[in-house]
């Protein structure tokens, strides 16, 4: 129980002015300081992992399609493999977090546009096979196996399908967490999808950099990955900044506690990764360039993951403390009351 949460549920201010209770920022009524909401039952690493991997997969499908179109076989193989691996692991996390995993298919019992989880389940039901076929047809070709009739066509169609659905796979999870009563998630809904797609682009770019370096691909193969990583990092950082500056009280959980540590780590990793990515564009000895690109890629992927873990924990923290629920609602009521009084006078 904090000092502001008095057992009688009232604040110091209220006692002085019994008739018209005013709740200043630091004072609010609560029931023994207990949360108003039931905090999410979602767990780490399942749900932050699911958010992160969806972004990584979606961005990778975009890179994979572009790589195929522009004749970058190593980048295509890396990103298409990354997309299906990310999506599959993301699905695993989603199923694992269910209270009744055996009933996962009940997700496809109905389609509800009012439920981002329903929309997302259908989206993944289309995306995962597309990403899987895109990767399989690509790797089949790379492995130099006897070609099958229609492989190229099937590969092109599934690659295009995965690229069209990918950005939505990366972004719908923002609506999923924002469409709750969790104060910091809900309040952040205008920027959240941009954080998610920026972060997903950054992670996919990072994966492309890492993979092309490890495979020893030519310098030209990594260029789009480098560009996407930098653009994504810039977007993630700008959207995050915009959100935490726009929000007032409910921005606090992003900067404090466990969430604050993840958000800070995300900033450092993305900053280092971006700097390394820029450095890898300069004329360096081949081995040095590859080493810098690989390390930068790892930092960018890790930074993207930290962003999702930070957002996840910030939401949970905002649901666990009643002040994030009560104070903004109380302020809204007071400003509405003031508005009515003003219009009468």
């Amino acid at each position, binding site marked *: 129980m904090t000092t502001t949460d008095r057992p009688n549920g009232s604040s110091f201010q209220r006692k002085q002015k019994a008739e018209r209770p005013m709740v200043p920022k630091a004072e609010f009524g609560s029931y023994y300081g207990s949360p108003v909401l039931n905090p999410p039952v979602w767990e780490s690493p399942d749900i932050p992992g699911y958010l992160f991997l969806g972004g990584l997969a979606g961005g990778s499908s975009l890179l994979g399609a572009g790589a195929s179109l522009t004749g970058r076989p190593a980048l295509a193989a890396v990103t298409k493999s990354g997309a299906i691996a990310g999506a599959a692991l993301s699905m695993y996390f989603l199923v694992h977090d269910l209270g009744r995993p055996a009933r996962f298919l009940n997700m496809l019992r109905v389609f509800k546009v009012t439920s981002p*989880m329903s929309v997302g389940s259908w989206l993944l039901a289309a995306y995962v096979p597309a990403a899987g076929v895109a990767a399989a047809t690509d790797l089949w070709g790379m492995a130099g196996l006897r070609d099958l009739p229609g492989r190229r066509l099937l590969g092109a169609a599934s690659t295009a399908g995965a690229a069209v659905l990918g950005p939505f796979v990366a972004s719908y999870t923002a609506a999923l967490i924002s469409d709750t009563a969790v104060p910091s998630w809900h309040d952040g809904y205008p920027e959240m999808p941009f954080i998610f797609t920026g972060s997903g682009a950054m992670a996919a770019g990072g994966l492309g950099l890492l993979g092309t370096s490890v495979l020893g691909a030519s310098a030209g193969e990594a260029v789009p990955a480098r560009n996407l990583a930098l653009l994504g990092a810039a977007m993630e950082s700008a959207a995050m900044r915009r959100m935490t500056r726009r929000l007032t009280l409910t921005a606090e959980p992003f900067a404090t506690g466990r969430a604050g540590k993840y958000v800070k780590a995300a900033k450092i990793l993305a900053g280092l990764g971006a700097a390394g990515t820029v450095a890898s564009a300069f004329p360096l000895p081949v081995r040095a360039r590859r080493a810098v690109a690989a390390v930068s890629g790892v930092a960018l992927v890790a930074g993207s993951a930290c962003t999702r873990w930070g957002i996840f924990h910030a939401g949970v923290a905002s649901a666990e403390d009643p002040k994030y629920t009560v104070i903004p609602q109380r302020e809204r009521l007071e400003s509405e009351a003031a508005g009515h009084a003003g219009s009468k006078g």
Partner: protein
Amino acid sequence: MTETTDPASRSGYADHPPRMGFFTDTSVCIGCKACEVACKEWNGVPSAGGRDLLGLSYDNTGGLGADTWRHVAFIEQTKPMRQEGADGPGGDMRWLMASDVCKHCTNAACLDVCPTGSLFRTEFGTVVVQEDICNGCGYCVPACPYGVIDRREDDGRAWKCTMCYDRIGDGLEPACAKACPTDSIQYGPLEELRERAAARVEEVDGARLYGDDPSDGVGGDGAFFLLLDEPEVYGLPPDPVVTTRDLPSMWRHVGAAAGVMAALAVAAFGGAK
């Protein structure tokens, strides 16, 4: 504008009984917890676990959850209560007691976000979980602006008050209302309860209604209350809003962000030679 007063019609029931609800008049609650017990007995709700002594006045239940569908709150306040000129014992202490329950919102976030269709709207306008459908995704839990529904740990599914769907279909009142010795919990057609509450609130000093207004953030509650202090004092949100009210805007932002992501990828390849 959507029709917010009749959720059953909106859900496709052509011919249905009137919307039923609870009016919980906390001014006559004596904190006996008969509602908690009757609810557990009728619905076979398991123990919330352990013999918890929470030290919150007489409240050893804590709050609503998967295993608590009625919760009696006890609030001890220091407040001059003695009427002027009155003799006898008494002092500056008052005790608020209130039996909380699922609000059966007109616009119910738990129902909106449920991806399996397990949560549904009944012909009585109430909101009920179908336990044979629920896969325990947990989405309803943080969606509820009141902290009502929760996932049962050993069972993995979501549970909450059904307004005794199995009783009211047979014309019986829900177990909690039946057991309440002071009629603090009143069950009946919502319209009738609202009229009764409007009269009652005029009679009681310092009383206010909570959840009775169809123009509030959830379109009004099927279970509403007469309170003697601010809602947050009872652990209730002062101005709850159904989260899905903003969902159309959320989807627009998701679409825009996806478009921008695709544009970034085009730019990434456009910039590469």
